[in-house]
């Protein structure tokens, strides 16, 4: 699996198949990137469950914060990782144990060895990308701010 570039279809399939996302490293501070991504993904109809080892209970954007993935009481489709690369192997082990289908590592986060292990266990892996950016790129919204989406289409986009 080439993790330097992803085909649009690969990302589209992931984003259209998952519904519940556990966001590891979610922050309660509104100006942090994870907060941006969580709010955006909620707006697009995903359920996003915040996970943060430092959390002392409480809620982020209406969802209870859990300290570990194992504590999350609902079935998780995708684990979105907002942590440094060093923290990735442990999180992936938990994700495999929970039966998540997808692990997604944020911009700047990449761990090839852990990714290979997750793929061997049947998970789909995305690294060094942001689901908010990819979602908006694929549905055409990113062009609203001058971004080169790489999309060429003569079909009318659904609003």
């Amino acid at each position, binding site marked *: 699996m080439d993790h330097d570039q992803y085909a649009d279809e690969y990302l589209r399939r992931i984003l259209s198949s998952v519904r519940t996302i556990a966001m590891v490293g979610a922050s309660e501070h*509104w100006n942090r990137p994870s907060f941006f991504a969580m709010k955006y993904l909620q707006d697009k109809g995903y359920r996003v469950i915040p996970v943060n080892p430092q959390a002392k209970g409480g809620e982020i954007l209406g969802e209870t914060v859990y300290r570990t993935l194992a504590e999350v009481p609902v079935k998780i489709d995708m684990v979105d990782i907002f942590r440094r690369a060093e923290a990735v192997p442990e999180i992936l082990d938990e994700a495999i144990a929970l039966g998540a289908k997808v692990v997604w590592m944020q911009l700047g986060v990449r761990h090839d060895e852990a990714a290979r292990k997750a793929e061997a266990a049947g998970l789909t892996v995305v690294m060094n990308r942001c689901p908010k950016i990819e979602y908006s790129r694929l549905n055409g919204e990113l062009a609203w701010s001058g971004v080169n989406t790489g999309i*060429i289409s003569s079909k009318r986009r659904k609003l």
Partner: protein
Amino acid sequence: MAEKPRTPGFETLAIHAGASPDPATGARSTPIYQTTAYVFDDVDHAASLFNLQTYGYIYSRLTNPTVSVLEERVAALEGGRGAIAVASGHAAQMLAFFSFMEPGDQFLASNKLYGGSITQFGRSFKKFGWECVFVDADDPENFRRALTPRCKAIFVETLSNPTGVVVDLERIAGIAHEAGLLFIVDNTMASPWLCRPMRWGADLVIHSTTKFLSGHGNAMGGVVVDSGRFDWAQNDKFASLTQPEPAYHGLRFYETFGDLALTVHGHAVGLRDLGATMAPLNAFLTITGIETLPLRMERHVQNAQQVAEQLASHPAVSWVAYAGLPSNPYHALARKYLPKGAGSVFTFGVKGGYDAGVALVEGVELFSHLANVGDTRSLIIHPASTTHRQLTEEQQIAAGAGPDVVRLSIGIESVADIIADLDQALNKTKRA
């Protein structure tokens, strides 16, 4: 895997990039969204937009759907990650430097730029405390010699107007990157069809879209394209992108938007505060022009090469400065960086000096005597009697605008007519 992304060709991008059918109406040609503002769904939606947490339109000073199509189009043609369109080429330079310069900062630029850029960098930028140090780019090592700790960027033109200088992009990019500096290239005179500077290491590419991109001499505009490859956090020079932005409650652009940081910053801060927005109608005209860019450029350079060759052997002409001629000192660089042709703007010397130059521009019948380049029409100007007339003769010569210098921008008319018009006008100069 079978899902390898497929990259469309240049001609396909020139027509389609950024311009899927209008989602609201299905209109196939890009609609002109002539509106200043956009309604919010509710207060929460408005808050998300203002916090940059969701994408959408707020106010056309920042973003507009017609302008966005142009931005994506040019970004795609240059191989960039994103772009910011603005009111003119000068506004593009202003916005590019504004995104990272602070008072007391310095940048290096080639000393053979378009005269308007020399004035903007050398005089007006001083008022912001930005210092431009001009360097002879013929020897790329001159940039290394001029480096100081306050230096943040190197700026050159692919093909300079009007002197026809071609710079060694790859070597200068290397010098910039070794020093952790941003490499900015003005690609106006080449257009992305002749040269894509990001392939040679440019981090930002700037255009006056008024020229070849628009192509028809009917719309002002400029654009800044970001490659998305520059590491803003590699040193502490680019604080505006790496440090908390107070006006967005401490948001850090690079951390939050990754390789989109400059594109988002250019709209959310640059256009918000500089306000040099491109008009939607101008964006529409420019998008339409770009659709035929490959065809036009092919003809522009084919005509220019023939005209330059004819002039080189004309008895009323003393010299021709066109990098497409094998005798030109920049010919080798042009073959590397501009293999499809050395552009269509060049200068030549008319025998008889100032008076002959005046007689020539007044004697043409097909060429238009005006101060622009990159039009479908052939254009002519005698700098010493127009754009450079306020300078002394010594200053004119130093700027490549001596009394005998005539600048041509070769259009896409029938080449025989272009040559015949120059020939009849040159014959009049002998009587001047």
